[in-house]
């Protein structure tokens, strides 16, 4: 059986690796973006000089041949489900028995005038990085539009090259449709402290270019005209599915898939950023363009193709990021706006760069989510507490089990507990230590 995978990002590559583990099927991965799998999330580090591009490749180049995974560097123009084949840009075709669409995203463009000028780019593909590199030479000013994870990454990138950045953010506090207010404020402060010209509640109106077609100026919704040589469009991403518009594959915003990640066409699957679940789990979005879900989908599709039928289950939500010097981790349910039936316990370090938030249920008091800024928590421990709907007071007393900061770091679990005691009048005491033996014991307990 020949399994064809379009896209060599984390989803497609995970699928290929898992299929190889489970079977001897012939596997081919197609990508026009890069010869080999690289970590998209690390592109910023290449620009900033932390790493070389080759360091972003998680596997050595001979890995693919060793694992009998064929690589094709080409762009697919059309999928023809009836003939079970794909047609490339150059007109050649390739047949498949099973097809996995792992084609990822593209940067959103909301129809701004001038959005296709030279010097207007998102940051998603390797080619976007190359464009940023090209335009950075002698660049006097960059304007970034859109206050999400990629926007702040791009701001950090230009900042490392001493290029002044004006950062247009629609919201009145950074990423506050995802982060609760305090955390959002913390990141907003961090952006300002790094000397970024952050314009909150401001949107992009138009981009003006020179006669040559090169970007010259951005017009903001506050009427300000910002002269610039680069405009970064980072207002989110959407599935990269234009080439499927005229195929028989059902698409909406993304490629529609069922719980087994199958599309409406036989033997065609979609995973990762480009997949849109017809019926997502409760509290989850139909399209989740993040690394971890891509990886899980890759594994799930591999099992389904290799004869172990299984539903996609993303498990308990988790994510992480880094905003300049502040690391961020989230486990479970920490919405930006606190729902009616949620309680929240928020502790912030006096320095204003670390915080710990625990969400728990108002009535029965079980834990609902963890949000960490500048503090590391253990994934497995948090997940177990969440899965078992552990009472907040148990979690607080055992909170040290979750601490994952490096050795000798000051621990703040007692401060969190004291805050809770103070708020509720309880007299709880910490009863665990940050000891690996205790952690493993806890994780092993049924």
């Amino acid at each position, binding site marked *: 059986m020949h399994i064809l995978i379009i896209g060599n990002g984390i989803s497609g590559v995970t699928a290929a690796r898992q299929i190889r583990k489970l079977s001897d099927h012939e596997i081919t991965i197609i990508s026009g973006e890069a010869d080999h799998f690289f970590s998209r999330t690390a592109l910023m580090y290449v620009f900033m000089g932390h790493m070389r591009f080759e360091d972003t490749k998680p596997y050595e180049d001979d890995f693919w041949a060793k694992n009998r995974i064929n690589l094709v560097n080409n762009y697919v123009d059309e999928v023809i489900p009836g003939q079970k084949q794909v047609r490339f840009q150059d007109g050649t075709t390739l047949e498949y028995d099973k097809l996995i669409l792992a084609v990822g995203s593209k940067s959103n463009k909301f129809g701004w005038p001038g959005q296709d000028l030279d010097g207007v780019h998102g940051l998603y593909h390797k080619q976007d990085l190359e464009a940023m590199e090209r335009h950075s030479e002698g660049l006097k000013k960059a304007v970034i539009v859109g206050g999400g994870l990629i926007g702040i990454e791009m701001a950090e990138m230009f900042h490392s090259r001493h290029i002044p950045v004006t950062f247009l953010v629609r919201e009145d506090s950074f990423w506050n449709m995802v982060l609760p207010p305090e955390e959002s404020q913390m990141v907003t402060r961090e952006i300002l402290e790094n000397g970024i010209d952050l314009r909150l509640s401001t949107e992009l109106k138009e981009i003006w270019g020179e006669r040559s077609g090169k970007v010259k100026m951005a017009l903001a919704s506050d009427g300000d005209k910002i002269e610039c040589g680069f405009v970064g469009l980072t207002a989110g991403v959407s599935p990269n599915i234009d080439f499927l518009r005229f195929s028989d594959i059902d698409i909406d915003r993304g490629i529609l898939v069922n719980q087994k990640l199958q599309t409406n066409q036989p033997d065609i699957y979609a995973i990762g950023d480009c997949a849109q679940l017809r019926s997502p789990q409760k509290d989850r979005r139909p399209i989740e363009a993040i690394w971890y879900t891509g990886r*899980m989908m890759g594994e799930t599709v591999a099992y389904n193709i290799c004869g172990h039928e299984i539903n996609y289950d993303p498990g308990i939500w988790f994510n992480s990021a*880094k905003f300049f010097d502040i690391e961020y981790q989230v486990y479970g349910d920490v919405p930006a706006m606190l729902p009616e039936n949620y309680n929240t316990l928020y502790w912030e370090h006096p320095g204003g760069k670390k915080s710990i938030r625990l969400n728990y249920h108002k009535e029965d008091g079980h834990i609902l989510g963890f949000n960490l800024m500048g503090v590391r928590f253990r994934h497995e421990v948090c997940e177990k507490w969440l899965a078992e709907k552990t009472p907040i007071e148990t979690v607080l007393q055992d909170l040290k089990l979750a601490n994952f900061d490096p050795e*000798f770091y000051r621990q703040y679990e007692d401060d969190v507990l004291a805050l809770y005691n103070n708020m509720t009048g309880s007299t709880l005491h910490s009863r665990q230590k940050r000891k690996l033996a205790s952690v493993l014991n806890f994780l092993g307990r049924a």
Partner: protein
Amino acid sequence: MSAKSNRKNPIQILGIILFSAALITFTVALGMSGFKLDKEVLKAQVNNEYQYNFIEPYLDNLGSTEYPNSFKFMAAYAESLHSAQADILKDVETNLGLTTSDGEYWNTILKDDKIKSMKFAVAKASSIGPIREHRNTLAWLSFGLGILGAFLYILPKLRESSGIKNNHIYHSPLHSKGWLGITVGIYLVGFYVLLYFFPEHMVNWVLLVDPISTFLNGGAASQWFLYGFLYTICILVMGVRMIVKYRHNKYQIIRTGSVMFFQTSFAFLIPEIMALLNKPAVDLKNMWPLDYSFFFDYRLDKLTESGGLGLFLLFWGIALFTIGVPFITYFFGKRWYCSWVCGCGGLAETLGDPYRQLSDKRMKAWKIERWMIHSVLVFAVVMTIAVLYSYLPESGSLITKDRFIWTALALLIGATVWIFQQYKKKNGMPKTAFYVAAAVSVALFVIALLNGIVFSSSNVLYLDAYQLRSWYGFGIGAAFSGVVGVGFYPFMGNRVWCRFGCPLAAYLGLVQRFKSRFRITTNGGQCISCGNCSTYCEMGIDVRAYAQRGQDIVRSSCVGCGVCSAVCPRGVLRLENGPEVDERATEERAIHIDLEGVRLLD
């Protein structure tokens, strides 16, 4: 200033200028003297009336000429001494009538070794001119100004926000094998070549530190004092840099403080003070087999002649590697030594930190590493056994040649069998390398036994113990650990020696790999495969390969520097000690850690 470098403020630029000026002064000082033979010192060095009588006629020229540099002077010295050597030989054979079979013959002739060993002292005494007149000024301009310049460059970084600041490392010609890195590498290699093989050409540098040496131990400086002095300064100054860089990370601060402390006290000051008190000058933290000469005759003699203290030091040295290594490594991993105590590690973690990203991460490099480092360990063990075997008496003592060799053999076979079993338990049947290494070791010892016991030769392996140890000293001790180990920082990263050549690292690594509570824990499924951990691993471990599979990391080479954990942008890695490592280090775990999900199908 280029956009692809970090901004430097005026104070930092001044720092760079002062440091460069100091480095230039230091380098130029090497040529800032003429050479005119100091006859008295030569006479004292020869310390043999008979030989000196033959040398003296040649000194008329040598002693009255002022040579412009050490090369011309040493060439003239060699010519004169070799002429005298020929005259002596002639006299010994014709007038004294001795032949090579006479013991007296060998005591009378002037040997090449002696001509060579006198070079340094003669050259140092014969250096004349500005270097002597302006010694203190030059010393201040070199060391004082250099340190000041370095601090002016380092300390202003405190004004930036704290956090991981690796911007532009791969844009910098110093840190990515560019022209500046190559220059630094050549300079370092040159320094080590002079230090180990031609110290007579660096006497002017040694003269600069004479006053410091006199102050500390009452004697004049040798090239080794200069080396120890510079080594300590590098660790202290660059240690401050490391602390400034990682000031948000308490593990790094404490660990760096530890290597700074052990270098300054144990490696530098305590031995000097012991020398001042006329006691054996020993680095109490240096241990066999890194300290490969620990069991050499002259050192054993010195210790056994030094009374109670000497015996204590002998016991301490043996206890360190027989008891200290297994126990402490069991609880904390090899990091307790390699990145907290060791001098080589200390230099790598401070002076070498800017080069850590240059270590080779490829699988191929790992293969070469395993072969090389374990071969060096076998070499060190065989060499030491041979040396001890020839040192020990045949009989009449508690430890005789026979008893020693049998005990050593039993211990080695025991250790090999134990490693086999541990390996099998954790990884299945051992791979080829293990078989080959074991087969070679056994073969070596069978030969040794046949040779020593059946043919009652005092040599192990038909090899002259003296030969063996001089090969080791030259190849491993000088060329590898020094010239390559530090000289190649800007080419192959800061742990070339520790990774490919250190026999102690190999030994610590075996304990860490098979019997230790240390591991790097991977935080569930949080890894995004970005590769910062692997890039900044000085030991060339592909940390990401484990992290992205959710595996805990147990690698014999890991020195526990903690930088992978520090540079991780997602909080994925943590160094910890806990119950003995289990399947968390071998199974693929993290892709889907939800137990109700995919994993049930496994």
